């Protein structure tokens, strides 16, 4: 050995610093202790956030990654520490969130012996990661981390897991960090073919009723401006998916609303009336398509998509523009004719008016006694900043908040889309807030989901992240109850909750708290929440048995979207 050699554990930390990782969200334990020991000397260069559960760590890393566009870093020990990351990995994979997770592993001579806290985390995490690896030698640590960051952030982003045995952490090795820029078996950015662009442009130019659907790919590909320029020139109406929300401002004249099971009336219904469907950075999730056999059959589909495996997966495309959608959109904008589609957009506006009359009015300005989730969001809109970030959990509150929150800029929407992970919001909001303490981060959450990761109130307390938690409490697992009401003959099987005194719990965690159950107090309470400069917990007791509409029932077609 020579004097310049350092322990593998320190190589881990130095590699993370070399990748400009700002935070590590993690939880220590036996097999990762050497790395935590090394971390002790680097506290001025990298901040570790000690969550209260590894699931909280990974969701916080996801929240951070989603708003910052940076790779979220997460750390856990072997065995249960590592298995507690699995939900977050699956969530990040399906929602294309860049993460690097580092787990400790038992010493290599113990592998396969059922040693204390040994689990085959590489095996378990395989279907939930874009790439994973076990490192058993100190010299392989830095290259694995370099490769992991490259894979996590490039192409279609995703989570990576690097499992490092304890002996690799304690062995001495040289540190020479070489960032990974290329892997011969991995082509993250397929080249956009000009002749395909020509074909797409010609279809668009001939279309009478073209329609753009955009997804998170626009945000991940930093294609927001390119999309806006394309819409400005082509005059085509555009609707967003759940995760694409905010990619362009909802105030854009061509923006017609949201897609999916609880999206807007017109955007769903008119999917089956357009003649050319231009899907940008979205993957035709079943929550968007409804019954795929009756989805946009009349339309020629143009699919702008980075991941070749998404092309023709559920919806067959006439023209597949594989590649970076920012480049594709820029090229398409050059080729499309300048047009407007006033009559076609008017069809959306008419249905929007109908939705407003039948649904939105009652949601936002109800006349009945019970508070609605919608009116809470209405008041949030009244006081929030334009760049406020909304983090939601999963369920009715998620759909209502998404429907009514006024998104004005990109990366302001953080939610668990593909996986639908209850418990996501509270830790994700913490991660989102840590990206920028000065941005408003509003965590809208239900009484079911918050109790899945409740303990992260402690992490918020410790970090003093000024997260505004808005608990919409209906004492029910509301979305499941809604399905039971509509499709299971009101047999409310295990959906009603006897809840604790949430306010007392939040108070115990040093949150400033307020509880509202009367309409008269709501506006003032929301206003006060935004004035407070620390963590805030607002519980709003809402109507017990409200439903979210519009709705495309499972197995129905988009044109069967119902308003009540």
């Amino acid at each position, binding site marked *: 050995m020579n004097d310049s050699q350092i322990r593998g554990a320190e190589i881990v930390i130095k590699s993370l610093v070399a990748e400009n990782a700002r935070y590590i969200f993690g939880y220590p334990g036996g097999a990762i202790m050497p790395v935590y020991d090394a971390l002790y000397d680097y506290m001025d260069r990298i901040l570790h956030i000690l969550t209260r559960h590894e699931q909280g760590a990974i969701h916080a890393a996801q929240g951070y990654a989603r708003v910052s566009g940076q790779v979220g870093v997460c750390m856990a020990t072997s065995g249960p520490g590592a298995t507690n990351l699995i939900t977050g990995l699956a969530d990040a994979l399906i929602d294309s969130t860049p993460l690097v997770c580092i787990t400790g592993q038992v010493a290599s001579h113990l592998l396969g012996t059922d040693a204390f806290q040994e689990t085959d985390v590489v095996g378990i995490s*395989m279907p939930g990661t874009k790439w994973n*690896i*076990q490192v058993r030698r100190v010299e392989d640590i830095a290259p694995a981390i370099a490769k992991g960051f490259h*894979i996590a952030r490039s192409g279609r982003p995703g989570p990576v897991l690097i499992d490092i045995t304890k002996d690799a952490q304690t062995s001495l090795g040289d540190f020479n960090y070489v960032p990974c820029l290329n*892997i011969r*078996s991995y082509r993250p950015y397929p080249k956009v073919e000009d002749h395909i662009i020509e074909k797409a442009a010609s279809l668009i130019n001939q279309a009478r009723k073209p329609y753009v659907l955009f997804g998170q790919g626009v945000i991940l590909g930093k294609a927001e401006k390119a999309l806006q320029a394309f819409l400005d020139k082509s005059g085509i109406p555009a609707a967003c998916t759940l995760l694409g929300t905010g990619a362009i401002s909802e105030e854009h004249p061509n923006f017609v609303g949201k897609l999916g099971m609880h999206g807007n009336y017109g955007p769903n219904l008119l999917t089956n009336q357009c003649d050319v469907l231009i899907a940008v950075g979205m993957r035709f999730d079943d929550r968007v398509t409804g019954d795929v056999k009756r989805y946009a059959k009349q339309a020629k589909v143009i699919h702008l998509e980075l991941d070749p*495996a998404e092309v023709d997966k559920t919806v067959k495309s006439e023209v597949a523009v594989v590649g970076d959608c920012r480049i594709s959109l820029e090229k398409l904008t050059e080729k499309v004719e300048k047009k407007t589609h006033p009559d076609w957009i008017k069809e959306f506006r008419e249905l929007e008016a109908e939705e407003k009359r039948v649904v939105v009015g009652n949601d936002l300005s109800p006349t009945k006694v019970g508070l609605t989730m919608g009116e809470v969001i209405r008041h949030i809109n009244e006081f929030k900043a334009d760049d406020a970030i909304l983090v939601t959990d999963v369920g009715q509150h998620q759909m209502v908040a998404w429907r009514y929150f006024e998104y004005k800029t990109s990366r302001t929407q953080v939610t668990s889309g593909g996986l639908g992970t209850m418990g996501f919001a509270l830790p994700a909001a913490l991660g989102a807030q840590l990206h920028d303490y000065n941005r408003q981060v509003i965590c809208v959450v239900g009484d079911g989901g918050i109790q899945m990761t409740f303990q992260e109130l402690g992490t918020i307390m410790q970090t003093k992240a000024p997260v505004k938690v808005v608990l919409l409490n209906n004492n029910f697992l509301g979305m499941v109850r809604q399905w039971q009401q509509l499709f299971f003959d009101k047999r409310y099987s295990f959906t009603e909750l006897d809840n604790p005194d949430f306010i007392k719990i939040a108070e115990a965690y040093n949150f400033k708290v307020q509880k509202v159950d009367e309409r008269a107090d709501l506006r003032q309470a929301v206003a006060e929440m935004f004035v407070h400069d620390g963590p805030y917990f607002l519980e709003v007791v809402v109507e017990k048995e409200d439903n979210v509409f519009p709705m495309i029932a499972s197995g129905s077609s988009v044109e069967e979207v119902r308003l009540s």
Partner: protein
Amino acid sequence: MNKKYTISVFTENFIGILSRITLIFTRRGINIDGFTASESREEGIYRITIVVTTSEAQIIQLTKQIEKIIDVIKAFYYLDEEMVFQEIALYKIPIDSIDAGLEKVIRQHNARIISAEKDFVVIEMTGHKEETQELLEVLKDFNVLEFVRSGRVAVAKPMETIDKYL
């Protein structure tokens, strides 16, 4: 309509790559009919040959999903008529079953005895599955103690090579 397809996968030599590939089939509930792996012409690059019976839409998806694996260099799929392929089969026959009839069977099927031990002989035959199966049926009269058939090895008829993807 379901057909028999052969997927040819070129991969880096990376621990876990076989698991990652087979997970793609497991997740979709697709049975793998044959699976072989060995080093390819290029040093360090492995070639995996997978045989499945499925629809064209599904085989396209499977191939894309395999290709999406970071350490997979390229995956191709072919119908039987687009490939030249072989399988190898070994048959273990007790020594006391040997008579003039066995010699005839071996000649007729282009098989050969590759090992003769005190108690048994091992017959080897290469060919398509139907051919090795046919020999198995015939040899049953001679009391087959053990039988094993390999997965398919196959080369494609199209003149594309892996070099251009490196």
